[in-house]
Protein backbone atom coordinates (compact mmCIF):
# COMPACT_ATOMS: atom_id res chain seq x y z
CA UNK A 1 0.00 0.00 0.00
CA UNK A 2 1.43 3.29 -1.09
CA UNK A 3 1.23 6.32 1.11
CA UNK A 4 0.05 8.99 -1.26
CA UNK A 5 2.53 11.70 -0.36
CA UNK A 6 5.49 9.32 -0.49
CA UNK A 7 4.71 8.16 -4.00
CA UNK A 8 4.46 11.78 -5.14
CA UNK A 9 7.81 12.55 -3.57
CA UNK A 10 9.55 9.54 -5.16
CA UNK A 11 8.16 10.50 -8.56
CA UNK A 12 9.51 14.04 -8.28
CA UNK A 13 12.88 12.64 -7.21
CA UNK A 14 13.04 10.21 -10.14
CA UNK A 15 12.08 12.95 -12.57
CA UNK A 16 14.83 15.20 -11.26
CA UNK A 17 17.23 12.75 -12.93
CA UNK A 18 15.53 13.30 -16.27
CA UNK A 19 12.21 13.11 -18.03
CA UNK A 20 10.35 9.82 -18.19
CA UNK A 21 6.96 8.35 -19.12
CA UNK A 22 4.56 6.54 -16.84
CA UNK A 23 5.48 2.94 -17.40
CA UNK A 24 9.17 3.77 -17.20
CA UNK A 25 8.61 5.36 -13.78
CA UNK A 26 6.66 2.31 -12.62
CA UNK A 27 9.57 0.09 -13.64
CA UNK A 28 12.15 2.25 -11.89
CA UNK A 29 10.15 2.26 -8.68
CA UNK A 30 10.00 -1.51 -8.91
CA UNK A 31 13.77 -1.65 -9.38
CA UNK A 32 14.18 0.47 -6.26
CA UNK A 33 12.44 -2.33 -4.38
CA UNK A 34 8.99 -0.85 -3.92
CA UNK A 35 7.30 -3.75 -5.66
CA UNK A 36 4.81 -3.16 -8.40
CA UNK A 37 3.11 0.23 -8.29
CA UNK A 38 -0.49 0.03 -9.45
CA UNK A 39 -1.24 2.30 -12.40
CA UNK A 40 -4.31 3.33 -10.45
CA UNK A 41 -2.04 5.12 -7.97
CA UNK A 42 0.74 6.17 -10.34
CA UNK A 43 -1.12 8.22 -12.93
CA UNK A 44 -3.39 10.13 -10.56
CA UNK A 45 -0.25 11.16 -8.62
CA UNK A 46 1.40 12.36 -11.84
CA UNK A 47 -1.75 14.20 -12.92
CA UNK A 48 -2.02 15.92 -9.55
CA UNK A 49 1.54 17.17 -9.76
CA UNK A 50 0.98 18.26 -13.34
CA UNK A 51 -2.05 20.24 -12.17
CA UNK A 52 0.01 21.84 -9.43
CA UNK A 53 2.57 22.92 -12.04
CA UNK A 54 5.31 20.68 -10.63
CA UNK A 55 5.41 18.62 -13.80
CA UNK A 56 5.03 19.48 -17.46
CA UNK A 57 3.81 16.90 -19.97
CA UNK A 58 5.18 16.34 -23.46
CA UNK A 59 3.66 13.95 -25.92
CA UNK A 60 5.95 11.98 -28.23
CA UNK A 61 5.20 9.36 -30.83
CA UNK A 62 5.71 5.88 -29.41
CA UNK A 63 7.62 3.02 -31.00
CA UNK A 64 4.91 1.11 -32.78
CA UNK A 65 2.43 1.52 -29.91
CA UNK A 66 0.32 4.53 -29.07
CA UNK A 67 1.88 7.92 -28.19
CA UNK A 68 3.82 8.41 -24.99
CA UNK A 69 3.35 11.12 -22.44
CA UNK A 70 6.68 12.24 -20.98
CA UNK A 71 6.79 14.06 -17.67
CA UNK A 72 9.33 16.83 -17.10
CA UNK A 73 10.11 18.41 -13.73
CA UNK A 74 9.50 22.18 -13.74
CA UNK A 75 11.22 24.82 -11.60
CA UNK A 76 8.22 24.84 -9.30
CA UNK A 77 8.57 21.05 -9.11
CA UNK A 78 12.22 21.38 -8.11
CA UNK A 79 11.25 23.79 -5.32
CA UNK A 80 8.53 21.42 -4.15
CA UNK A 81 10.96 18.49 -4.23
CA UNK A 82 13.48 20.41 -2.10
CA UNK A 83 10.88 21.38 0.50
CA UNK A 84 9.17 18.00 0.62
CA UNK A 85 12.35 15.95 0.76
CA UNK A 86 13.60 18.05 3.69
CA UNK A 87 10.29 17.45 5.49
CA UNK A 88 10.46 13.74 4.69
CA UNK A 89 14.04 13.37 5.96
CA UNK A 90 13.11 15.04 9.25
CA UNK A 91 10.09 12.76 9.57
CA UNK A 92 12.07 9.62 8.68
CA UNK A 93 14.79 10.54 11.18
CA UNK A 94 12.11 10.80 13.88
CA UNK A 95 10.74 7.39 12.99
CA UNK A 96 14.24 5.90 12.96
CA UNK A 97 14.98 7.36 16.40
CA UNK A 98 11.69 5.96 17.72
CA UNK A 99 12.50 2.52 16.32
CA UNK A 100 16.07 2.55 17.61
CA UNK A 101 16.75 -0.64 19.54
CA UNK A 102 13.62 -2.41 18.30
CA UNK A 103 14.44 -5.87 17.02
CA UNK A 104 13.64 -6.22 13.30
Amino acid at each position, binding site marked *: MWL*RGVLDLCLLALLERGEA*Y*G*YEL*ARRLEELGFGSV*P*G*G*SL*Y*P*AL*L*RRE*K*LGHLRAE*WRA*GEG*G*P*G*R*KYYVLTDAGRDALAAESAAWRAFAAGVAAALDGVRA
Partner: protein
Amino acid sequence: MRARTWLDELAHELTARGVPHAQVAGIVVETEAHLHEAAGDPLDTFGAPATYAGAVADALAADRVATAPGRVRVRARGLGKRHGRRAVLDGFDLDLRAGEAVLLMGANGRGKSTLLRILAGLDAPDRGKVEIDGSVGYAPQHGGLIDHLLPAEHFVLFGRPRGLDRRAAVQQGRRLAEQLGWDALAAPVAGALSGGTRQKLNVVLAALGEPDVLLLDEPYQGLDLESVQRFWDLLWDWRDAGRCALVASHAHDAIERADAVVEL
Protein backbone atom coordinates in the same frame (compact mmCIF):
# COMPACT_ATOMS: atom_id res chain seq x y z
CA MET B 1 -11.40 -8.09 -19.03
CA ARG B 2 -10.31 -7.21 -22.57
CA ALA B 3 -8.24 -4.05 -22.73
CA ARG B 4 -10.41 -2.45 -25.40
CA THR B 5 -13.62 -2.87 -23.42
CA TRP B 6 -11.89 -1.65 -20.28
CA LEU B 7 -10.58 1.47 -22.07
CA ASP B 8 -14.01 2.20 -23.55
CA GLU B 9 -15.53 1.99 -20.11
CA LEU B 10 -12.80 4.23 -18.72
CA ALA B 11 -13.56 6.88 -21.37
CA HIS B 12 -17.24 6.63 -20.55
CA GLU B 13 -16.66 6.95 -16.78
CA LEU B 14 -14.29 9.91 -17.20
CA THR B 15 -16.83 11.73 -19.35
CA ALA B 16 -19.56 10.97 -16.83
CA ARG B 17 -17.39 12.67 -14.19
CA GLY B 18 -17.17 15.84 -16.23
CA VAL B 19 -13.57 15.41 -17.40
CA PRO B 20 -13.23 17.44 -20.64
CA HIS B 21 -13.02 15.45 -23.88
CA ALA B 22 -9.51 16.56 -24.74
CA GLN B 23 -8.24 15.29 -21.39
CA VAL B 24 -10.19 12.04 -21.63
CA ALA B 25 -8.43 11.26 -24.90
CA GLY B 26 -5.01 11.93 -23.38
CA ILE B 27 -5.69 9.80 -20.32
CA VAL B 28 -6.99 6.90 -22.40
CA VAL B 29 -3.97 6.97 -24.71
CA GLU B 30 -1.57 7.10 -21.76
CA THR B 31 -3.35 4.23 -20.04
CA GLU B 32 -3.38 2.24 -23.26
CA ALA B 33 0.36 2.80 -23.69
CA HIS B 34 0.96 1.52 -20.19
CA LEU B 35 -1.16 -1.59 -20.78
CA HIS B 36 0.61 -2.15 -24.08
CA GLU B 37 4.00 -2.27 -22.36
CA ALA B 38 3.03 -3.89 -19.11
CA ALA B 39 1.03 -6.56 -20.95
CA GLY B 40 -1.11 -7.15 -17.86
CA ASP B 41 -4.82 -7.35 -17.24
CA PRO B 42 -6.17 -3.80 -16.94
CA LEU B 43 -8.22 -4.84 -13.92
CA ASP B 44 -5.06 -5.89 -12.06
CA THR B 45 -3.04 -2.85 -13.09
CA PHE B 46 -5.66 -0.11 -12.80
CA GLY B 47 -8.64 -1.63 -11.02
CA ALA B 48 -12.23 -1.16 -12.16
CA PRO B 49 -12.73 1.57 -14.78
CA ALA B 50 -15.10 3.49 -12.51
CA THR B 51 -12.62 3.43 -9.60
CA TYR B 52 -9.73 4.55 -11.74
CA ALA B 53 -11.82 7.26 -13.39
CA GLY B 54 -12.74 8.50 -9.92
CA ALA B 55 -9.08 8.70 -8.86
CA VAL B 56 -8.18 10.57 -12.05
CA ALA B 57 -11.09 13.00 -11.69
CA ASP B 58 -9.97 13.66 -8.11
CA ALA B 59 -6.42 14.36 -9.20
CA LEU B 60 -7.68 16.77 -11.83
CA ALA B 61 -9.79 18.50 -9.21
CA ALA B 62 -6.71 19.03 -7.02
CA ASP B 63 -6.61 22.70 -7.96
CA ARG B 64 -10.30 23.12 -7.41
CA VAL B 65 -9.67 25.28 -4.42
CA ALA B 66 -12.50 27.17 -2.83
CA THR B 67 -12.96 30.83 -3.54
CA ALA B 68 -11.35 32.83 -0.75
CA PRO B 69 -13.04 31.71 2.47
CA GLY B 70 -15.54 34.22 3.72
CA ARG B 71 -16.84 35.19 7.10
CA VAL B 72 -16.57 32.94 10.11
CA ARG B 73 -19.75 30.87 10.43
CA VAL B 74 -18.72 28.75 13.39
CA ARG B 75 -16.37 29.94 16.11
CA ALA B 76 -15.51 27.63 18.97
CA ARG B 77 -13.14 28.70 21.74
CA GLY B 78 -11.69 26.66 24.56
CA LEU B 79 -14.22 23.85 24.33
CA GLY B 80 -13.97 21.29 27.10
CA LYS B 81 -16.13 18.24 27.66
CA ARG B 82 -15.76 15.30 30.02
CA HIS B 83 -17.46 11.96 29.82
CA GLY B 84 -17.26 10.74 33.40
CA ARG B 85 -13.61 11.16 34.42
CA ARG B 86 -12.29 11.22 30.89
CA ALA B 87 -11.66 14.53 29.10
CA VAL B 88 -13.05 14.11 25.57
CA LEU B 89 -12.37 17.69 24.54
CA ASP B 90 -9.83 19.88 26.23
CA GLY B 91 -9.41 23.48 25.15
CA PHE B 92 -10.50 22.98 21.55
CA ASP B 93 -10.64 25.95 19.14
CA LEU B 94 -12.15 26.08 15.68
CA ASP B 95 -13.00 28.65 13.01
CA LEU B 96 -15.15 27.42 10.17
CA ARG B 97 -15.63 29.94 7.38
CA ALA B 98 -18.14 30.32 4.58
CA GLY B 99 -16.79 28.57 1.47
CA GLU B 100 -14.89 25.84 3.31
CA ALA B 101 -15.35 22.08 3.41
CA VAL B 102 -13.30 20.95 6.39
CA LEU B 103 -12.48 17.40 7.41
CA LEU B 104 -12.54 16.48 11.09
CA MET B 105 -10.19 13.58 11.77
CA GLY B 106 -9.24 11.62 14.84
CA ALA B 107 -9.34 8.07 16.12
CA ASN B 108 -12.48 6.65 17.66
CA GLY B 109 -13.16 8.10 21.07
CA ARG B 110 -11.27 11.32 20.41
CA GLY B 111 -14.44 13.36 20.50
CA LYS B 112 -15.45 13.87 16.87
CA SER B 113 -19.10 13.04 17.49
CA THR B 114 -19.10 14.96 20.78
CA LEU B 115 -17.76 18.05 19.04
CA LEU B 116 -20.34 17.85 16.26
CA ARG B 117 -23.14 17.42 18.80
CA ILE B 118 -21.93 20.48 20.69
CA LEU B 119 -21.70 22.55 17.49
CA ALA B 120 -25.18 21.37 16.50
CA GLY B 121 -26.45 22.50 19.89
CA LEU B 122 -27.47 19.02 21.06
CA ASP B 123 -24.95 18.95 23.90
CA ALA B 124 -23.58 21.76 26.04
CA PRO B 125 -19.82 21.99 26.57
CA ASP B 126 -18.50 21.94 30.14
CA ARG B 127 -16.20 24.82 29.28
CA GLY B 128 -15.74 27.26 26.42
CA LYS B 129 -18.24 28.68 24.00
CA VAL B 130 -19.63 28.29 20.51
CA GLU B 131 -20.85 31.08 18.28
CA ILE B 132 -22.78 30.20 15.15
CA ASP B 133 -23.64 32.71 12.47
CA GLY B 134 -26.42 31.24 10.34
CA SER B 135 -28.53 28.10 10.07
CA VAL B 136 -27.24 24.61 10.82
CA GLY B 137 -27.91 21.17 9.33
CA TYR B 138 -26.66 18.08 11.18
CA ALA B 139 -26.43 14.42 10.17
CA PRO B 140 -25.75 12.02 13.06
CA GLN B 141 -23.63 8.90 12.65
CA HIS B 142 -26.40 6.67 13.95
CA GLY B 143 -30.14 7.03 14.04
CA GLY B 144 -31.72 10.28 13.02
CA LEU B 145 -34.39 8.55 10.94
CA ILE B 146 -37.94 7.42 11.55
CA ASP B 147 -38.07 3.82 10.45
CA HIS B 148 -41.71 3.62 9.38
CA LEU B 149 -41.64 6.79 7.25
CA LEU B 150 -40.72 7.01 3.56
CA PRO B 151 -37.77 9.20 2.52
CA ALA B 152 -40.23 11.67 0.94
CA GLU B 153 -42.11 11.89 4.23
CA HIS B 154 -38.83 12.67 5.97
CA PHE B 155 -38.26 15.47 3.47
CA VAL B 156 -41.63 17.03 4.30
CA LEU B 157 -41.13 16.68 8.04
CA PHE B 158 -37.57 18.04 8.10
CA GLY B 159 -38.26 20.66 5.43
CA ARG B 160 -41.09 22.39 7.25
CA PRO B 161 -39.08 23.98 10.09
CA ARG B 162 -36.65 25.20 7.44
CA GLY B 163 -39.37 27.04 5.59
CA LEU B 164 -40.01 24.53 2.81
CA ASP B 165 -43.58 23.61 1.96
CA ARG B 166 -44.45 20.04 1.10
CA ARG B 167 -43.80 20.33 -2.60
CA ALA B 168 -40.54 22.26 -2.27
CA ALA B 169 -39.28 19.85 0.40
CA VAL B 170 -39.92 16.76 -1.73
CA GLN B 171 -38.43 18.41 -4.79
CA GLN B 172 -35.30 19.54 -3.01
CA GLY B 173 -34.87 16.21 -1.20
CA ARG B 174 -35.18 14.32 -4.44
CA ARG B 175 -32.66 16.57 -6.16
CA LEU B 176 -30.10 16.22 -3.37
CA ALA B 177 -30.60 12.44 -3.33
CA GLU B 178 -30.09 12.37 -7.10
CA GLN B 179 -26.78 14.16 -6.65
CA LEU B 180 -25.79 11.25 -4.43
CA GLY B 181 -26.93 8.79 -7.11
CA TRP B 182 -30.01 7.71 -5.21
CA ASP B 183 -33.64 7.64 -6.35
CA ALA B 184 -35.27 8.59 -3.06
CA LEU B 185 -38.87 8.61 -4.29
CA ALA B 186 -38.65 4.98 -5.38
CA ALA B 187 -37.20 3.88 -2.03
CA PRO B 188 -39.04 2.01 0.73
CA VAL B 189 -39.49 3.20 4.32
CA ALA B 190 -36.32 4.18 6.18
CA GLY B 191 -36.30 0.99 8.26
CA ALA B 192 -35.85 -1.09 5.10
CA LEU B 193 -32.87 0.87 3.75
CA SER B 194 -29.27 -0.39 3.75
CA GLY B 195 -26.72 1.31 5.99
CA GLY B 196 -25.20 3.31 3.14
CA THR B 197 -28.58 4.49 1.92
CA ARG B 198 -29.57 5.52 5.44
CA GLN B 199 -26.45 7.67 5.53
CA LYS B 200 -27.43 9.25 2.21
CA LEU B 201 -30.86 10.04 3.63
CA ASN B 202 -29.24 11.59 6.70
CA VAL B 203 -27.00 13.76 4.50
CA VAL B 204 -29.98 14.87 2.39
CA LEU B 205 -31.98 15.75 5.52
CA ALA B 206 -29.07 17.76 6.92
CA ALA B 207 -28.73 19.67 3.64
CA LEU B 208 -32.45 20.30 3.19
CA GLY B 209 -33.26 24.00 3.13
CA GLU B 210 -29.56 24.70 2.37
CA PRO B 211 -28.37 25.70 5.83
CA ASP B 212 -25.24 27.85 6.08
CA VAL B 213 -23.41 25.24 8.12
CA LEU B 214 -23.46 21.52 7.41
CA LEU B 215 -22.25 19.16 10.15
CA LEU B 216 -21.86 15.54 9.02
CA ASP B 217 -20.84 12.69 11.30
CA GLU B 218 -19.21 9.82 9.36
CA PRO B 219 -21.35 10.23 6.23
CA TYR B 220 -19.04 7.76 4.48
CA GLN B 221 -19.87 4.54 6.26
CA GLY B 222 -21.40 1.97 3.96
CA LEU B 223 -21.02 4.17 0.88
CA ASP B 224 -19.55 2.65 -2.27
CA LEU B 225 -16.71 4.42 -4.09
CA GLU B 226 -18.93 6.05 -6.65
CA SER B 227 -21.23 7.44 -3.98
CA VAL B 228 -18.23 8.82 -2.09
CA GLN B 229 -17.17 10.71 -5.21
CA ARG B 230 -20.71 12.03 -5.67
CA PHE B 231 -20.81 13.04 -2.04
CA TRP B 232 -17.70 15.17 -2.48
CA ASP B 233 -19.04 16.68 -5.71
CA LEU B 234 -22.09 17.74 -3.74
CA LEU B 235 -19.93 19.12 -0.96
CA TRP B 236 -17.74 21.10 -3.38
CA ASP B 237 -20.81 22.66 -4.97
CA TRP B 238 -22.01 23.40 -1.47
CA ARG B 239 -18.95 25.32 -0.41
CA ASP B 240 -18.58 26.97 -3.84
CA ALA B 241 -22.01 28.42 -3.19
CA GLY B 242 -20.57 30.09 -0.10
CA ARG B 243 -21.85 27.67 2.53
CA CYS B 244 -19.60 25.57 4.74
CA ALA B 245 -19.31 22.02 5.97
CA LEU B 246 -17.53 20.11 8.71
CA VAL B 247 -17.24 16.39 7.98
CA ALA B 248 -16.09 13.85 10.56
CA SER B 249 -14.48 10.85 8.91
CA HIS B 250 -11.49 8.60 9.18
CA ALA B 251 -11.57 7.75 5.49
CA HIS B 252 -8.10 8.70 4.29
CA ASP B 253 -9.15 9.63 0.79
CA ALA B 254 -11.07 12.50 2.37
CA ILE B 255 -7.82 14.22 3.34
CA GLU B 256 -7.02 15.47 -0.11
CA ARG B 257 -10.60 16.23 -1.00
CA ALA B 258 -11.21 18.55 1.90
CA ASP B 259 -10.06 22.18 1.94
CA ALA B 260 -8.57 21.78 5.39
CA VAL B 261 -8.14 19.09 8.00
CA VAL B 262 -8.75 19.51 11.72
CA GLU B 263 -7.36 16.78 13.96
CA LEU B 264 -8.71 15.81 17.32
